[in-house]
């Protein structure tokens, strides 16, 4: 058994007080309340998007029906009776088909509170009914306002807006993530290569970047999407036949290939700006003595690029990713809104807003309002989280590299 040795006094005091991980997280959250708020918003929407099937109260593509009651029987009827007396407030028309319980009847004649009907229409059996039974019919519940049953209301096709917004989160986040990953990975690769290699490679890459950056971002994105989004575009055919990207539903995303192509287009649109920024950083890192030392030790070019230079631009790349992600999400919504992105009936915030534009002008604001609110919240969340992240990782960048500082879509 080893004997305990008391540490000298001086050392004992030098040990900083221990803070547990959750406590540290809480401190961090208190210091950056906006960042914590952003994280919370993203966590909620991410959860909703991933577990959409469990969270959403209705099927996002199924029109909801409601039974509208027109009248109530004031006296019981048996299976043979064809004359009904109803209570006041009958709202029936001639020739109308209504249901009583599981039976359907057709209204033939209306005289005051007495109606003559044809029993057992539409393959249903004529059965006796009690007094008070409702005569009703089931209709698609279009454009009904927010209520307890449909908290966000229903859209022009009677679909539940809340469910569509929840499923829209999945599409939106998926596209944003894939586009950001593609843009940042390809852009960083080109940037490191261009900055390190110099000479002809650098010129070739930089002139292409110049040409791409000369387009206003939305215009470039629209052009790319028109070209590669076409039903028989070469890119799409190539992806369908030569890669394992599924054409049907994948990870709960319907029409996955289509969604992937849109992400790719958005990704291509951000490659140039990422490559430009990363190249700039590489140019200054390249001049460091440790790079020279690595070369003197006989390290290959690819080793220097990926083992010595890349780790030094990694922080910058993460920051670029944090700026790109909300932009990619906004870009998806914008192109879907313009009708060239995600196509209905796939639930997409942008496409849903556009689909319900006309009815919004007639006063039904909810099918436009809620998807847009979700979109604004998720972008706001990412912007706030990104700001906090930049504050924490490098105080010198405070405010300077914010989303406002970069090229935005």
């Amino acid at each position: 058994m080893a004997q305990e040795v008391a540490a000298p006094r001086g050392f004992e005091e030098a040990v900083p007080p221990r803070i547990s991980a959750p406590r540290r997280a809480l401190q961090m959250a208190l210091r950056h309340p906006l960042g914590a708020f952003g994280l919370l918003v993203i966590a909620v929407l991410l959860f909703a998007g991933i577990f959409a099937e469990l969270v959403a109260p209705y099927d996002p593509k199924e029109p909801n029906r409601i039974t509208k009651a027109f009248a109530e029987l004031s006296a019981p009827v048996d299976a043979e009776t064809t004359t009904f007396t109803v209570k006041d407030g009958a709202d029936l028309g001639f020739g109308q088909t209504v249901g009583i319980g599981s039976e359907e009847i057709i209204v033939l004649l209306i005289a005051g509170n007495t109606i003559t009907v044809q029993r057992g229409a539409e393959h249903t059996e004529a059965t006796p009914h009690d007094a008070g039974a409702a005569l009703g019919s089931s209709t698609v519940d279009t454009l009904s306002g927010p209520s307890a049953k449909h908290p966000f209301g229903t859209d022009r096709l009677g679909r539940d807006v809340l469910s569509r917004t929840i499923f829209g989160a999945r599409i939106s986040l998926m596209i944003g993530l894939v586009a950001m990953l593609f843009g940042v990975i390809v852009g960083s690769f080109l940037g490191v290569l261009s900055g390190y290699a110099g000479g002809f490679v650098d010129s070739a890459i930089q002139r292409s970047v110049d040409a791409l950056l000369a387009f206003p971002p939305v215009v470039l994105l629209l052009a790319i999407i028109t070209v590669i989004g076409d039903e028989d575009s070469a890119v799409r055919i190539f992806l369908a036949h030569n890669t394992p990207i599924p054409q049907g539903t994948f990870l709960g995303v319907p029409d996955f290939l289509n969604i992937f192509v849109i992400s790719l287009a958005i990704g291509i649109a951000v490659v140039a700006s990422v490559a430009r920024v990363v190249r700039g950083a590489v140019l200054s890192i390249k001049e460091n003595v440790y790079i020279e030392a690595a070369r003197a030790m006989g390290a290959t070019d690819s080793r220097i690029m990926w083992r010595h230079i890349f780790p030094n631009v990694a922080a910058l790349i993460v920051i670029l990713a944090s700026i790109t992600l909300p932009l990619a999400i906004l870009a998806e919504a914008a192109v879907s809104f313009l009708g060239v992105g995600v196509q209905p009936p796939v639930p997409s915030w942008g496409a849903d807003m556009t689909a319900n534009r006309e009815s919004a002008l007639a006063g039904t604001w909810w099918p436009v309002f809620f998807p847009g609110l979700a979109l604004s919240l998720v972008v706001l969340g990412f912007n706030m989280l990104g700001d906090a992240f930049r504050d924490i990782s490098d105080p010198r960048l405070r405010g300077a590299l914010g989303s406002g500082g970069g090229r935005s879509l």
Partner: protein
Amino acid sequence: MRNYILRRLLILIPIMLGVSFLTFGMFRMIPGDAAVLRCQLGCTPEVLEDLRHEMGLDRPWYRQYGDWVWDIVRHGDLGQSLTESRLPVTTELDRRLPVTLELVTMTLFMALLLGIPPGVISAIRPGTPLDWLARVGSVLWLSIPGFWLGILVIAFGVNWFGWTPPQFGSGYVPFRDDPWVNMQQFFFPALVLALAIAAAIMRLTRSSLLEVLRNDYIRTAWAKGLRERTVVMRHALKNALIPVLTIVGLQVGNLIGGAVIIESVFNLNGIGKYVLEAIIRRDFFVVQSVVLLFAVAYVMANLVVDLLYGWLDPRIRYG
């Protein structure tokens, strides 16, 4: 100075060639050429061949590209629409350019107005509720998509105030004809488009002014006993605005892209709406020319910004 402008204009040539080549190449990648799109009912291979010949699509691609660029350079001819009307692009642009120009100018003006003063206030009073308000506001405006805000403005205008932007009834009314109606047409689209840009300007004004205020010459100005107004406005702001100007130049790209979206939301018949409609009906001759035009405008705007640096900061000299 003249040499500098000349050199910058010369650099534009390869960039423009790259841009035009990219645009041209991109739209050639779409399967099924323009003739197939034109040729719909009763299309036989002969008719298709005739159409191709008529539209000049039977020439080799480098001839097509060359002729396109040459027509633009020589005659300023941007080609014509694929639709039955065969409307020349330049004719449409003549009609639509004033709309887009007015929208963009007004937006830029509003963005500066909404961006710089809050940025200055937030920088000279850091940590106060005003600073906090300005910063939260800027993150909000950056995150709220303009097209959503646009629809809400129209929808709530109609339903709550019984007011629709007049362009939904009548077409574009030039400022000279009726300033009041014209302002009604442009106020909200410009405001919606300006918010995100104002937020970017505000953030940069704030951080840039904070940086400048730490300089020695500002301390000297304070030590001389100058009023705060003089220190901030005369000594600090002018220097702080240089990076802000760069952002304004870069934002011209967003402005053009935003115009494409906002014009379609607010039913303004500008160039943005024109190009969007052309993209949707796959009128590629129109798209390639207008996209090229946008790129030129964007690059030129950034050139103007670079030249303005010299005016703002006499230390910057162009050799």
